[in-house]
């Protein structure tokens, strides 16, 4: 961004769109298991995610552009998860919350858990933890915002 005379900033339209998009992410409540409760805690008063423009948790995929996959994805749930992802409008982003979603977690030896939700839908940000604390999820959200704005972590 450049600051011209009289305090007017000039930028490309793309950059302005990215900035707007990153600060008004509307998450979809994809609460599947334990992590859903921590996702609710992120939304609640103590770790107020509204500070980052994401307080509106939508229940309809048509109205949201960020899917927080919170909790173990089983093989029975994976096709449904994929379908809900397909119903979301572009541009759309996915945060994988918790180790179950990242690679299977404690259920890696079993028969009914998908070992990594990235086999089902493309994932932008991984938030490890079992379950991750609300602070970790907030950090993941900020990381996603930076990713949308094409910023690097310095």
């Amino acid at each position, binding site marked *: 961004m450049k600051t011209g005379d009289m305090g007017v900033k000039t930028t490309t339209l793309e950059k302005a769109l990215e900035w707007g998009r990153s600060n008004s992410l509307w998450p979809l409540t994809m609460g599947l298991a334990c992590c859903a409760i921590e996702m609710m805690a992120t939304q609640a008063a103590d770790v107020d995610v509204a500070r980052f423009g994401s307080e509106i948790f939508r229940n309809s995929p048509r109205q949201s552009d960020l899917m927080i996959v919170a909790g173990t994805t089983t*093989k*029975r749930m994976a096709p449904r*998860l994929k379908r809900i992802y397909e119903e979301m409008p572009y541009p759309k982003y996915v945060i994988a919350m918790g180790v179950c979603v990242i690679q299977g977690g404690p259920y890696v*030896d079993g028969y*009914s858990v*998908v070992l990594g939700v990235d*086999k*089902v839908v493309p994932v932008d940000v991984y938030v490890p933890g079992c379950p991750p604390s609300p602070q970790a999820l907030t950090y993941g959200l900020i990381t996603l915002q930076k990713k949308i704005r094409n910023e690097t972590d310095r």
Partner: protein
Amino acid sequence: MYKIISEETDKSGMKVLNIDKSDLIELMEDYKDRKYFLSSITGVDMKDHIDVIYHLHNFDKNDYICVKVSTTDEKVPSITKLWKAAIVDEREQYDLMGITFEGHDNLRRILLPDDWVGHPLRKDYDLNKVQYVSVDRDGNEHVSFDDKEGW
């Protein structure tokens, strides 16, 4: 009249009745008359036979008893006529352990998709064979061993 093969007390102080499969309904009817209610059904795969363990509870006397039967042909008479709690319990044990409860009206899988191959809590279930679930437009679930078919 039913016959109790042996009676013992387990480590938690619970009375355990070992009975034959053919006496099960008669014994359960007797305990139902004595105001016992079904608490849980557990199946245990012992490789050559399957143990089915019923836990009954009397709320007035606060008495817990345990009834054990064993079966070699994976079939046990259903007790859904006596207690409705058995409906979900028997479906769960059918799903995971593969015990057929004879006389159950709606004996289908409860936790896994209907097409799932094998009963996971059996000792001979092969965990290395991965099964994949897919859903068609009508919402019906299909299971296959091919990873391209899944989701």
